[in-house]
């Protein structure tokens, strides 16, 4: 098997065009998730990779295998160090383009090639020493072994090393007096700092401050430094003419497949680094079983990635939630008190399915998810100063559009629809939409304040956000499977004000 890409096993799967963020990204907070994942890796332009869900189970497995391989810490570090070297290589080339003096430009090119050779050779060795299971990494290893063994590569590296050794052997002295700098060859004079240390050795008292001043003048040179370099070059003519030849000969040293790999592997690295931050606080990730047939899905200890990421930044705890759908169950109807985590729960359902379709690990202890053809979401748009008629109409139009697009393989997330009308209206309209949704046999999470929806049919499952009875003000953010009676928390609030039957009877003594 020939190696093409670490993201796609076959060339033809690879969509070339730059893609837009999918419509539902903002509703599911996936825009924030992808932003956080790709933060600090802008130069790889990773976002488009997160915009394309995979279409078949095998492609998902191809990536899951690679993710699993990368969970080997040693391999992960190897990949990171490869990336770091390639980054430095690009930096050298960028700097070269900015520089003015030829003898400096050429040296930067040499430095870039050196680190490239090192990076590739090291990676080839590392992969050979690693027990790889994924198709992707095995193919890459085969490719690299061939490349590193090739005559072209070996010649390139040998020349590079020779030239570098020659250059680093150059040693010279400067005598600075008044406004003059004299360049001459080095004559092994003693290092003054060593003499000083020896003289005062007897006073040594333990650690003291470091007085060394960091001189960071950047890479570029000014005319004085260039002139010094010129004099040094004139004193070593052979070495510097070799450098000239080397540069004109090796302009296209970079292998294209390796360059592409360098970018694409960052999709995995970025995700794993992001997940690792969350895992450190005890949150779990797992590889979901993905099916395109079976709509029995579940996830235990799932969480909203965007919210969790924000909470751990503020050192706040993250509440996990479970869900499962069995048999004919298709629609999770979420009701209960406000601020109880209902919307978050809906997002979890959507995020998990989407991440699974990218081949990524998903939040949770264990999960089975469905490979959808599309995700459709309806979240309430921001309040704006439109008349109520307009808003309701807008809701209906959008929902109609969703139901038009949806197939039985879609995932639909509805969040508090029809809030801009009376309860009766909302109830009647919701039931109509519910009927249509059930007919579609589509997987759906439906967040609503209308309790009746929860027990609509055998396809619907009721889940409720919960409270602590003693202190209803305290949020648990737990969403549990139970009938939506709306009474449990009402009673608790009444008790707090001593307005329940027994309490009130006791207080009122007539």
């Amino acid at each position, binding site marked *: 098997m020939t190696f093409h890409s670490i993201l796609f096993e076959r060339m033809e799967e690879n969509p070339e065009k730059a893609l837009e963020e999918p419509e539902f990204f903002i509703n599911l907070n996936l825009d924030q998730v992808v932003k956080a994942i790709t933060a600090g890796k802008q130069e790889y332009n990773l976002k488009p990779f997160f915009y394309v869900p995979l279409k078949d189970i095998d492609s998902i497995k191809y990536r899951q295998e690679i993710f699993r391989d990368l969970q080997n810490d040693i391999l992960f570090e190897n990949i990171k160090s490869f990336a770091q070297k390639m980054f430095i290589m690009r930096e*050298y080339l960028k700097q070269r383009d900015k*520089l003015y003096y030829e*003898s*400096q430009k050429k*040296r*930067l090119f040499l*430095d870039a090639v050196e680190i490239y050779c090192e990076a590739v050779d090291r990676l080839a060795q590392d992969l050979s020493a690693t027990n790889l299971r994924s198709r992707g990494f095995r193919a890459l290893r085969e490719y690299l072994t061939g490349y590193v063994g090739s005559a072209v590569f070996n010649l390139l590296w040998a020349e590079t090393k020779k030239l570098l050794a020659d*250059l*680093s052997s*150059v*040693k*010279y*002295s*400067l*005598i*600075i*007096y*008044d*406004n*003059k*700098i*004299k*360049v*001459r060859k*080095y004559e092994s*004079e*003693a*290092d*003054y*700092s*060593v*003499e*000083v*240390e020896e*003289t*005062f050795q*007897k*006073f*040594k*008292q*333990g650690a*003291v*401050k*470091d*007085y*060394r*001043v960091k*001189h960071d*003048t950047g*890479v570029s*040179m*000014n*005319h*004085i*430094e260039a*002139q*010094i*370099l010129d*004099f040094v070059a*004139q004193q070593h003519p052979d070495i510097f003419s070799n450098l000239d030849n080397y540069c004109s000969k090796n302009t296209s040293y970079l292998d294209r497949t390796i360059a592409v790999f360098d970018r694409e592997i960052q999709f995995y690295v970025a995700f794993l680094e992001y997940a690792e931050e969350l895992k450190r606080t005890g949150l779990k990730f797992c590889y979901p079983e993905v099916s395109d047939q079976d709509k029995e899905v579940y996830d235990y200890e799932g969480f909203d990635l965007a919210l969790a990421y924000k909470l751990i930044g503020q050192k706040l705890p993250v509440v996990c939630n479970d869900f499962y759908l069995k048999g004919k169950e298709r629609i999770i109807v979420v009701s209960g008190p406000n601020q109880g985590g209902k919307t978050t729960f809906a997002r979890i359902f959507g995020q998990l399915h989407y991440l699974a379709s990218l081949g990524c690990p998903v939040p949770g202890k264990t999960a089975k998810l469905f490979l959808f053809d599309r995700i459709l979401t309806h979240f309430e748009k921001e309040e704006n100063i439109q008349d109520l008629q307009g808003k309701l109409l807008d809701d209906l139009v959008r929902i109609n559009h969703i139901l038009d697009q949806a197939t039985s393989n879609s995932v639909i997330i509805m969040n508090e629809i029809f809030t801009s009308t009376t309860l009766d209206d909302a109830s009647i309209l919701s039931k109509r939409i519910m009927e249509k949704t059930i007919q579609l046999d589509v997987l759906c999470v439906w967040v609503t304040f209308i309790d009746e929806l929860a027990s609509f049919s055998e396809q619907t499952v009721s889940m409720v956000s919960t409270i602590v009875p003693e202190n209803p003000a305290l949020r648990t953010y737990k969403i549990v499977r139970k009938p939506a009676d709306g009474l449990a928390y009402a009673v608790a609030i009444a008790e707090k004000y001593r307005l329940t039957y027994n309490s009130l009877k006791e207080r009122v003594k007539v």
Partner: protein
Amino acid sequence: MKAFLLFKDRDFDLQQRLPANEQDLVQDLELNTLFGAMAGGDEFLFEVAKNCILSSLDNDLDTVLYRQDILRDCIKNSSLVRDIYQLAIEAIASEKEAYFFTFFSKYPSAILGRSIKVLYAFMTRLRKLRNIAKEHANQFESEGFRSFFAMLVKELSDEYFASVEDHLKELELPRGALISAELGKSNKGINYTLRKYQGTKQSWLEWLFSRRTTPYTITIDGRDQVGTRTLSEIRDSGVNLAANALAQSCDHILGFFKMLQAELAFYVGCLNLHGQLAQLGEPTCFPLPIVPSARRHSARELYDVCLALTMKQKVVGNHLDADHGNLVIITGANQGGKSTFLRSLGLAQLMMQCGMFVPAESFSANLCDGLFTHYKREEDVAMESGKFDEELSRMSDIADRLTANSIVLFNESFASTNEREGSEIARQIVSVLLEKQIKVVFVTHLYKFAHDLYDQKMDHAVFLRAERQPDGSRSFKLVEGEPLQTSFGLDLYTKVFN
């Protein structure tokens, strides 16, 4: 080079952690009075005295004896010791002065220049110090001073001073800077290193040669700002390591002086205190410390040094014969000197353990590794807990920290409840402490508690009673005797309401 005047084999650590009950000790034993007398208004002396005394529970027997010897030398040669202390202070001040202008310098050349200046100043003081050592070493007998002086004489020879001066002159770079370099990434110069011209003679020729223009000489025009800057940058890079080494050497020597100052500060504090007590006509003696595992506690004319310092007069001393035992119970007349005696025991213990003389005609005790005070406290202002609650909570803190050879000083503890309950709690607590071989000195009015212990007729337990003269007046003397049911509070009542 180390002074090693507080510990035979290590530096004094002014930053060390003090015992967790530091504040209680200071408050209950009136330690600030003691520190103040040692400091004589000097903050640094105060700090050192405080640190030495409060950390003294960690000292072993050898350290205590090592310091006693040094302190004897100090008392004998007090003006010389104060001179050395002054030298250290001067040296430290000279460094600060040089720093004043270049504190924020980011330029190695400036760092180099300043370091040279500081080193000249240090060498002057080191030479004086060495001279004192040479001249007066035979007046000192302690191991500490003898090895300190011997080290000064050995390390700081005239040849050494001469070689340092040579270096300092050379480092002023009168012949220009000779700097080696290599080609780094991007072919920029790296590893700029200041080099020493080879041989003195040769380098004069070199100097002439260096002034001559060769084909490889760059001359920078005075108006070329970038060029001028580059020249000084290269020069700075070259000087960087040498300047660092020199500046660090300054720090090391400064460290030596600071350590010398800190270690001597303890003895200077002792001298200050010694002078004041002598003026009051109070006796002092070097105590006889015993290993921690033994149980010794005896004293003649032991007095409360803080009381004497506060009253500025000679105060009553007391005897104690409590060898081999772990329990001293003190009862008796109010205002009879019980608390004072308790405090004098704590003070003497700490002073002995840090190597000082003690306020007594004679004193001997085993070293302890923990000293705790449990005194009555003011009512909790924040109303967070009841008084008895608070007392027990402090007792629980102490219990957490107890070590095998601890001493606990109780002053009217567990009296904030009724006598029966207080006695029972005190009995239970003290029983445990005694079983654990922990020394207990307990001043109490809890008659039942004190008398029940008395009735047990324990070996080596000591019961002291504050004396009341038949006319009701107090002698502040403690005598051995059975606890009495009254503390003669009525006497005070009468005194106040008459």
